[in-house]
C-alpha cells in the first residue's frame, strides 16, 4: 500500500482509530469529558442505590435527599437477611441459575461441536432454530407453560418449572458462543488424538473443551446472568418462596403501609453485587464473547 509509505502527519488520522499519543488537544479533552460523563451515568444509579441502602430510617425520608449519606448503618442489610423468605429466594435463584447453566452448557457444547466439526444437512436450520428463540416474547410462552405445569406435568412452583423455560433462553447463547470458539480452534490436536484412537466424545471433552475454556467460562457467565435476571417466568410459574427467584421475591416484598425503600435498596445491592463483581473482573471475556457472534456473524 503506497499510502503507508508516505509520512502521514498524526493530525490527519482521526475517525476510527484515535491514536492519541502525547500532547493536549481540545478534541481529546472533550472526549475524555464525554467518557467521564458516560461512566457517571452508568454507575450513578448504582451509587444511589448503595447510598440509600446504608442510610437509616430518618435520613431516608429527608427532603432534599442527601447525596452522601450522613449515617452509615447496615441495619437494612441485617433486616433483609434476617427475613427467611429473602434468603430462601437467594438460594432459589442460585440453584436455578446453576442448574440451568450446567444443563445448557452440556447440551449446547454437544450441539456446537456437531455444527463446528461435522458435516450434515440441516446445519443452517439448526442455527436458525436457535436464533428464532429471540423472536418469541416470553409472555407468549407463559400461558401454556402455566397450564402444562399445573396439569400434565405438575411441577408448578418448583425449580423444574423455571429451569425448563430458562434453558430455552440460555441454549442459544451457549450454542452460538461455543460454535464460534470451536470453529476458531485449529483441528490439529483433536485430529491427532483421533488418529491415536480416541473417540469423538473423548476428543471433545478432554481436548477441545479445555482449550476453549475461556469461551466455556464466558458462556457460563452469560447464561448465569440471563437466568439470574429472569422475572417473568419466576412470576408466573411460582407462587411463593418455595421456588421463587429473588427477582420476584423483591417485588412481593412490599410492606403494608410504608414502602421499605431502605430494605429494597439493600436487597437490590445484595442481588446485584455478585453480578457487578463478575462483570467488572471479566468484562474482557464477556465483551469478546458477545461480539464474537456479532462480528463473525
Amino acid at each position, binding site marked *: *500500500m503506497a499510502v*503507508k509509505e508516505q509520512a*502521514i502527519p498524526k493530525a*490527519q*488520522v*482521526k*475517525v*476510527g*482509530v484515535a*491514536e*492519541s499519543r502525547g500532547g493536549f488537544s481540545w478534541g481529546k479533552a472533550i472526549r475524555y469529558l464525554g467518557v467521564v460523563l*458516560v*461512566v457517571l*451515568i*452508568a*454507575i450513578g*444509579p*448504582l451509587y*444511589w*442505590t448503595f447510598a440509600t441502602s446504608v442510610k437509616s430510617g430518618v435520613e*431516608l*425520608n429527608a427532603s432534599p435527599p442527601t447525596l452522601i449519606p450522613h449515617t452509615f448503618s447496615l441495619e437494612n442489610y441485617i433486616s433483609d437477611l434476617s427475613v427467611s423468605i429473602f434468603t430462601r429466594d437467594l438460594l432459589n435463584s442460585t440453584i436455578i441459575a446453576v442448574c440451568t447453566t450446567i444443563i445448557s452448557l452440556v*447440551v449446547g457444547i*454437544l*450441539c456446537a461441536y*456437531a455444527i463446528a466439526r461435522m458435516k450434515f444437512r440441516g446445519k443452517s436450520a*439448526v442455527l436458525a*432454530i436457535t436464533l428464532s428463540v*429471540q*423472536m*418469541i*416474547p416470553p*409472555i*407468549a*410462552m407463559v*400461558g401454556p*407453560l*402455566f*397450564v*402444562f405445569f399445573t396439569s400434565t406435568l405438575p411441577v408448578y412452583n418448583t425449580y423444574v418449572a423455571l429451569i425448563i423455560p430458562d434453558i430455552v433462553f440460555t441454549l442459544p447463547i451457549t450454542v452460538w458462543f461455543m460454535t464460534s470458539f470451536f470453529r476458531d480452534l485449529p483441528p490439529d490436536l483433536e485430529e491427532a488424538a483421533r*488418529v491415536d484412537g480416541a473417540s*469423538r466424545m473423548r476428543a471433545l471433552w478432554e481436548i477441545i473443551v479445555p482449550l476453549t475454556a475461556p469461551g466455556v467460562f464466558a458462556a457460563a457467565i452469560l447464561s448465569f*446472568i440471563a437466568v439470574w435476571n429472569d*422475572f417473568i417466568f419466576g412470576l*408466573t410459574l411460582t407462587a411463593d418462596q418455595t421456588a421463587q427467584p429473588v427477582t420476584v421475591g423483591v*417485588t412481593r416484598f412490599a410492606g403494608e403501609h410504608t*414502602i421499605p*425503600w431502605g430494605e*429494597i*435498596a439493600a436487597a*437490590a445491592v445484595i*442481588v*446485584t453485587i455478585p*453480578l457487578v463483581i463478575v*462483570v*467488572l473482573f471479566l468484562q*474482557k471475556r464477556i465483551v469478546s464473547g458477545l*461480539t464474537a457472534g*456479532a*462480528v463473525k456473524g
Partner: protein
Amino acid sequence: MATQAAEVPARRQTLRDRLDLGSGIAPYILVLPTVVVILAVAAYPILNSIWLSFLDNPLSPSASFTGLTNYITLFHSNTFIASIGTTFVFTIISVALETVLGLGVALLINGMFPGRGLVRAAILVPWAFPTIISAEIWLLMYNDRTGIISYFMQQMHIIPPGATLLETSSGIVAASIITDVWKTTPFMALLILAGLQVIPSELYEAASVDGSSKFQQFWTITLPMITGPLIIALLFRTLAALGVFDLFYVLAGNQVQSMASYSYEYMFTRTTFDFATGVAAAVVLFATGVIISIIFAIVMRVTRS
C-alpha cells in the same frame, strides 16, 4: 516437527474424509437435545397459545371452542388498544435512543486510552442488572420519598413540588424509556464498538490523504461497514422491546400497560374467563413480532441488492 508436517497431510486427508462420511447419524444425535428442547419448550407453547386463544375457558377441562370471540373482546377493549400504542411508543423511542447513543458511546471509547478496560467494565454494569432491579433502582430515584431525580426535576421546575415523574401516564412511559435506555445502551455500544474495530484504519488514512473530512469519513466509511451487524442488533432489540414486561410491571402496574403486562393481568390476576383473553393478547404480540421480522428481512434483502 517439519517431517511430521510433511507426513501427516496425506494421512489426514483420507482420515478426514472417512470421518466425515461416517459421521452420518452422529451429528443429528448431538444436536437433537438442543432442537428438541427449543421446539418443545418454545415452539409448542406458541402453537398452544394460538389454540388456547380460541377457547373460552382454557383452564377448565370443559373448555369449548369460541373462535375469534377473545380477539373481538380484545380489540374492543380500550385498554388493550392503549397498550398497543404504549408498546409501540416505548419500542420506537427506546430502540432509536439506544442505537444513536450506543453509536455515540462506541465512537467515544473507540481508541487507545488508559483505563479503557475499566470504562468498558463500568458501562457494562447497567447491563448486568436484572431488569427488575434496574426498575427498582430507578424507582428509588423517581419516587416521592427518596427520589433524587424527582428532587432535581422539581428544582428545575419541570414538575411541581411534591410530584414525581410517575404520576402521569406519559411520565411513566418516559421513566420506562429512560430506564431501558440506561440498561441497554451499553450493550448496543459494545456491539457497535466491535464492528468499528474491524474497520481497517488504512481506509481512514487513505481518505484523509484524499482530503475528506472526519464527517465525510463517518458517512462513507464507518456507517456502511457497521450496517450489517447493526441491523441484526436492531432487529433483536426491537423484538425484545416489543415484549417489554418487567419495567411496566414495576413502574406502572395496571395504570399504564404494555401489551405484555396487559396480557399478564388478564391471564393471572383476573377470573379464569379472562385467561383466554390474556393469551389472545400474547398471540397478537407474537404476531406483531413476526410481522416486524419479515419487514426487517425484506428491508435487508432490498438494501443488499
